């Protein structure tokens, strides 16, 4: 193994490496691409650290180990059955190869506005468990991501787990990614929705998050409020879609224009029209 690739077997073995300034690497699918063409620099691989893995129910949360790969999460019944909005995103992330290597922790710390797991995790009100030599802290995901590639991760810290409060089993969970092709394509817009209705179909609580329409994933509080108390009919969803369009700040890039993103961002919820 190359001198540049260090493989600590535990968090205790990781801390000194972080102190040396060695960069954390999980699946490497983001990091190595960004480093392409540069002089190789040391990395600390997380794959042998057992405590960063596992999917379990813990203190009322579904806890997802940061080093779980997209593929391993998809195989897990808790994810498939309790968090279909996340599973929907994992299914269309990258390609089978990327899903086998890339991790949920890496997807979060990469902090791309197009990171496919982010919109679902925003809509699920996920929290993050961050650990360091000095202890652990728990922060809401939404506050952790500051902008493209920018997070609140402190030096010496590692993301250990994602804590997801499981929605009511009856809640509607919906995810859609709009890309320019069906695999290996960055989202142009994505929508994650977690919606709880009463027995009559009236919305009690709606959580809506849009990806790729601003510097970070956007929750849409106005639209959420507008949807509460209404049914998922075409008329309501059109109005809510219009509100969503007003809550985002998309940009033009090679993949799509801001106008297209805005238009589609307000359309996607219509898919739920009953």
């Amino acid at each position: 193994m190359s001198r540049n690739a260090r493989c600590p077997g535990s968090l205790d073995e990781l801390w000194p490496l972080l102190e040396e300034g060695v960069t954390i690497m999980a699946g490497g699918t983001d990091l190595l691409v960004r480093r392409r063409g540069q002089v190789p620099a040391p990395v600390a691989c997380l794959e042998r650290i057992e405590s960063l893995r596992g999917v379990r129910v813990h203190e009322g949360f579904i806890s997802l180990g940061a080093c779980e790969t997209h593929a391993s999460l998809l195989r897990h019944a808790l994810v498939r059955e309790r968090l279909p909005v996340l599973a929907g995103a994992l299914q269309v992330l990258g390609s089978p190869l990327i899903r086998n290597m890339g991790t949920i922790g890496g997807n979060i710390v990469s902090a791309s506005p197009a990171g496919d797991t982010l919109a679902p995790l925003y809509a699920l009100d996920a929290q993050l468990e961050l650990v360091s030599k000095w202890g652990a802290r728990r922060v809401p995901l939404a506050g952790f991501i500051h902008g493209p590639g920018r997070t609140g991760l402190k030096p010496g810290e590692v993301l250990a787990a994602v804590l997801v409060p499981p929605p009511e089993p009856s809640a509607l969970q919906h995810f859609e990614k709009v890309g320019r092709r069906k695999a290996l394509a960055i989202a142009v817009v994505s929508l994650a929705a977690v919606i709880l209705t009463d027995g009559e179909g009236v919305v009690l609580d709606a959580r809506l998050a849009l990806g790729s329409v601003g510097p970070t994933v956007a929750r849409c509080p106005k639209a959420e409020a507008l949807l509460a108390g209404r049914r998922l009919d075409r008329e309501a969803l059109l109005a809510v879609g219009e509100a969503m369009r007003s809550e985002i700040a998309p940009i033009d890039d090679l993949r799509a224009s801001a106008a297209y993103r805005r238009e589609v961002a307000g359309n996607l919820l219509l898919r739920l029209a009953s």
Partner: protein
Amino acid sequence: MKPSSPNQPDFSFRHADTLSKAVGAERYSTDFTPPGCLWAGAKRAGVPHARITAVHVGEALAVDGVKTVLTGADVPGSNLQGIVHKDQPVLAVDTVRHAGDAVALVLAESREALAEALSRIRLEYEPLPGVFEPELALAAEAPLVHPGREGGNLLARGLVDKGDARAAMRGCDVVVEGEFETPMQEHVFLEPPNGTARLTATNGLETVVSTQAPFRDRFEIAHALGLDPMRIRVRAPYLGGGFGGKDGATVQCLLALAALHAGGRWVKMVWSREETFLAGYKRHAARVRIRLGASSSGALQALDSVMYFDSGPYAHLGVEIMALGLEHAGGPYMIPHTRAEGFCVYTNNPVGGAFRGFGVVQASFALERSLDALAARLGMDPAELRLMNALRTGEANCAGVAMESPTGVRECLEAVMAHPVWAGRHTWKEAAPPFKRRGVGIAASCNAMGYGRGLPDAAAAKLELTRTGTFRIFNSVADMGQGNAAAFVQLAASALNQDSSLFEVVQPDTRLCPPAGSSSASRTTYTFGNALLRACEAMREKLKARAALALLVDEPSRLRLAPGVVADEATGRSIPLALLGNMLQRDDRICVDQYVMPVVENPPDTGKAFRLGFPHRFFSHGACVCALEADELTGQVELVECVTAVECGRVLSARGVEQQVHGAAAQGAGLVLMENLAHQDGRILAGDLSTYLIPTSRDLPDLEWLAVDGDEPTGPHGVKGMGEVGIHGPAPAVAQALEDAVGLSINRIPVDPMDVLRALRSNKA
């Protein structure tokens, strides 16, 4: 011989290279890395048009492991590459004309040193105004790409006509008019342009290159660098894809130049994907204006079209590509009066070059869209309109050439029209799920085979009986993945009545193989195949004659070749091939023969600008039905079905044809659905595979194909070439299907989901 059913793979025949490729044992050019070789790389201009005021190489030379840095001043010979027209410097001298021009060449001991040195070369420029749009480039005051050149930015103008289109147009009951644009397209072959070269002890040049044209490469290198072409040896192992992008110099001249400075050491050059986007050839972007007139019954009467091809700063095969575009302006239809005028124009965009469908893609999209407009105007079914105008054998195409070779366009159309995707389209459309609009479209096409009149389309084939009684085919036409090497084995095995396992194929090597034209123009199996069959014939006669000596038979003609032996049925005696092989000296074990594709005998009095390669005599035909779903919420378009029928003479290998149709249809689908270089002012914005998207397997339906029986009497076993014809269907068929689904009439591709949304919105209003 009826082709086996296309949907049942014919296991009767396996490609010899399937296993070696699957297990990674096949050695591509890129796998050839002699120990201790030097690495060469080009410094690219980075700007589309500028005067070079200085090239600072000092810092690069100082990098540890750098052997030398060469600039334009170091190039011996003409310093001009090009296939027909020589206008592309190996290294730019005083001007750069597109962002991918090579300005300096570095030789280094390692790839790391090479990369470091390339990053340390500093180029100083005086920017020049550029031209990025062919029609603007023709304006009187446009900046010149090649100042002082007679003709300015107009590389070539051509006219192909028949009858009097403009007069006939006035007499038409209906005339439709339109302007259509097709974009540049990247080949995206898997194996990047690469090769290895060295000077031999006797001052010859030896190269191993990923190339479609090993024999012609010698002349291109020799001309550019002032060398003797006969002292250049080119070897072309299996290519990891080409599609036209390796027809003409990529690494060849740069590598040869590097070898001249490497003191006999091997030098290797491999372009990165990004360099390939930047410097490689592209399908020519084209703009086509059409007027198409018909009688009220739908009979086509007149076609008047003008085409502009964006050549970039160099000719490459631009003129020949435009010629083929003009020759296909009328497609596979009978139109009494036609006029197609073309302008091939220099710009400071990436260099246009050969790409599967060579000018025909551009012409075909415009014509098929015009037929759709005509069908709409006449209230006719688009399939019926095509069928009633389909060109029949004996009728003249738009270049005035009467179709001698049987045309199968009608049969192709009938085949796809009978397919459930077309026949059942109304029911299918009605069953669209929520938020989806469904549409179905149909298109027909033809594609010429071979170089055309004036440029002999020739191949020589060498066949050897080995001492152990097996056979060795010296393949002179590179196999870029299309499977011609395997087809040659199949042809020879059946001609000699031997098992295919007895055949070995030597891949093109200008020292070992007799010359042949390039792997291009849907010509490979036809031309080399015919040469090989003749060589087989000679071999058969020879083996019978030699066997007759051993068997004491007076009339060799009564002997037969049977697996492993020459047999005398009259006596039941036979002689093993191994024995014959052992008996004969090497010269006597070899048969060489050749073939030249026949040309149009009495060419029409048109296309005068095209002395090389015009007109064509043979065409393959195709028809394609595409069914799609457009999403009302996102404007995304999903290709749900794509059925292609092809008529390519007789089908030698159903699987071989199927694979060509798959690849071609996938490339056609990419062109219409997503491929977009997003170039702006001479710069490619989508210059890598994360931004330039080609379809993945999930973006493509099954790409079904239907065989239409044909027979080309001059073809080997009745074969016509068909490597290209399948690319033409998806773009127009998808466009028509989109119009059917959401009422959006597109005249440029790829489809923009935003336009789909707009169309949906305005339809509702």
